[in-house]
């Protein structure tokens, strides 16, 4: 069974589709799990509710996290991930529309590994998503998870 390597947390269907489009164009074919709100993301990460059968921490290489999310917002999700001794090792990339300094600073304070503002232009957007996929999935060496 192929492990999920990318968790994409995105509630906006337009952004979701463009992100997936960009990843496809970038030939990133790793298995992607999509969560459409903060709660769903947390359930997946901590193997709860509908993901109770999932084996925690196995093979997840990066979490792409939007900040503005229904139910539990992105910063809260980030905080929960980075407060847990096991999940804090998973790289998190904040991928958001917000250029607000507050968001940037707070995200880093909470331990995000990267912060990317979604560009308005499609070409730039595609380039950004391809780059980050390339970096976190191929170049970055995550620690081994027991």
């Amino acid at each position, binding site marked *: 069974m192929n492990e999920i390597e990318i968790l994409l947390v995105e509630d*906006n269907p*337009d*952004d979701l589709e*463009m992100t997936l*489009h960009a990843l496809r*164009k970038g030939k990133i074919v790793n298995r992607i799990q999509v969560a459409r709100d903060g709660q769903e993301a947390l359930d997946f990460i901590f193997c709860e509710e509908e993901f109770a059968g999932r084996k925690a921490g196995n093979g997840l290489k990066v979490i792409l996290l939007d*900040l*503005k999310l229904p139910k539990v917002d992105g910063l809260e999700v980030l905080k929960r991930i980075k407060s847990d001794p096991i999940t804090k090792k998973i790289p998190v990339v904040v991928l*958001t*529309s*917000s*250029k*607000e300094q507050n968001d940037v600073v707070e995200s880093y304070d909470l331990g995000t590994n990267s912060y990317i503002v*979604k*560009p*308005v*232009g*499609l*070409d730039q*957007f595609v380039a950004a998503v391809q780059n980050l996929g390339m970096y976190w999935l191929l170049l970055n060496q995550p620690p081994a998870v027991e």
Partner: protein
Amino acid sequence: MALYVCTGLGITALGGAMQAALRRAGASALAGRREAAIIDQTYDAILVWDWEGAITFWNRGAERVYGIPREEALGRESNALLKTRTAIGVAGFLSALDREGAWEGVLEHTTRDGRTITVETRMVLIREEARAYVIEANRDITIRREAEEALRNSREQLEARVRERTAELAASHESTRQSEERMSGIVNSAMDAIISVDSSQRILLFNAAAGSMFRCPAAEAMGRSLDRFIPQRFREQHRHHVGDFGKTGVTSRSMHSLGALSGLRADGEEFPIEASISQITAGGEKIFTVILRDITARKRAEAAGVLLAAIVESSFDAIIGKDLDGVVTSWNVGAERMFGYSAEEMVGNSITRLIPPDHIDDEALILGRIRQGERVEHFETVRRRKDGKLIDASVTVSPIKDDRGNVVGASKVVRDITERKEAEEKVRLLNTELEKRVVERTAQLEVANKELEAFSYSVSHDLRAPLRAVNGFAGMVVDEFGSQLPAEAARYLERIRNAAIKMGQLIDDLLAFSRLGRQPLKRQEVNMAQLVQNVLDDLAPERKGRQIDIQAGVMPDCWGDPALLKQVWVNLLSNAIKYTRGCGGALVETGCESGNRENIYYVRDNGAGFDMKYAHKLFGVFQRLHRAEEFEGTGVGLAIVQRVIHRHGGRVWAEAEKGRGAIFRFTLGERK
């Protein structure tokens, strides 16, 4: 012969008859009865003794003088019988007799009853043939001697008394002199000026106090007329006063009744005096003595007192005197006005009738502090008028002390501060209201700020997402189906994408502009030259492919927020680069001019410039002076510049000419 000699010696008491008798007695043992009777009748003692000493004659005078009867005396040795004593001794006068034939002197004899008598004696030695005898006539001078002695004694006593009297007189003179000295000392040390003049006003006495009062040494005043110390206009009058006084015969009187008197000091200053005058007659001459007191200080004090009283009376404040029991002793017009009670109603009554029951403790507190000699200042309390109306009062109470410093009462100044209190209350209410409104406004502002932040966030996040979708899907259509699209459709899609990108830029600029108003200034020393250089470096991509002469002039440091100032330079320099596009020999110049109190930084270019009639629109948000086809832009850049400069307390302005370039100048407030 010898008898004449004897006579020649001057025994005056003996008449010629007695001389004859004596001669005969000597010659014939005084046999003649008549002569003997005469000799007997003389008061003098007359005796005759022979040279051997035996008495041969002893008259009745001798019996009386010596108390020795003739029978007892005859035949006796005279000097032995009479115990003759004399200064030169018996032998002395015997040898004198022998030598001179006569002797006279004073002898002391002892009488039969033992008395010592003094006699004046005349002795004559008569020599006749074989025999010689002595006639001795003695006059008892004891009484005379005693009288003389008494006289001498009495004279001595007299002289002693004369000496005593003389001494007394001298003492009396000394005492008079001392008394005069004392007097003169008193006169000279007197605090009052003392001046004596004669009837023609000539100064006879001018004491030290007079000297200092009239600022004239006594030596200069003596003998001169008193006039020089009287102001011209009073001289005649003064003369009359003194003249009239002289006629009254009254020895002294105060000149107080004469009304205001003035003296004239040697230096010309006139001053008020009080005087009394006295007169005596000495040696037929009238002498007037005036005693003067300089009452300048007293007049001044009186004037000040009158002024003070007037001030007290005219004061709007109530000024009240009271004793230590709180009984009113004085009550001015201000007090009448303020409290409605007249002085008649209040003086002698307790101050407590002014005090409302709930403030009655005030008085004990105030009087307690007054007794300690302390002042009570601006004690704010409530008092009650006669009509029952309560007034707010500020009370200042000071102790009144007697000469020895004992507190004997209090003076109290009361100010009606009802209006002030009302005004204060109004101000207080107004302040409270204002504070409330400030709090409300602050809260509203905070809410507004929160909302604005939420709005900005929302704009930045939510507004951009659909734009990205518009742009993204338009792009994806071109990507995936480009080959199947007609060229016209592809061009429209491109327009859609550009519009979306433009809108994204507007949103970004607008957010940046709105952020400027909210974020606090972080001022520090800024190296402007370095900052400008950094900006030029950052703008390198925009200069790519362009030939621009950039001249960076001298640039003093400033005090400001480096991040915001960087934005200013970015906007101004990128404008300069943008608007010189398409002009040959583009020149961009930066520099600084020294203004009066501020540094004026500038950016000059020789580009498109603008028409000055639109200059007022230059710094407005979204205001553009060029068409988008000529020069791209959102119209936010200069608005940001102006906002940053204003937040630094500076000014920004521009001058330009269409087609010939523009210069933008700004200051950052006064130089530090």
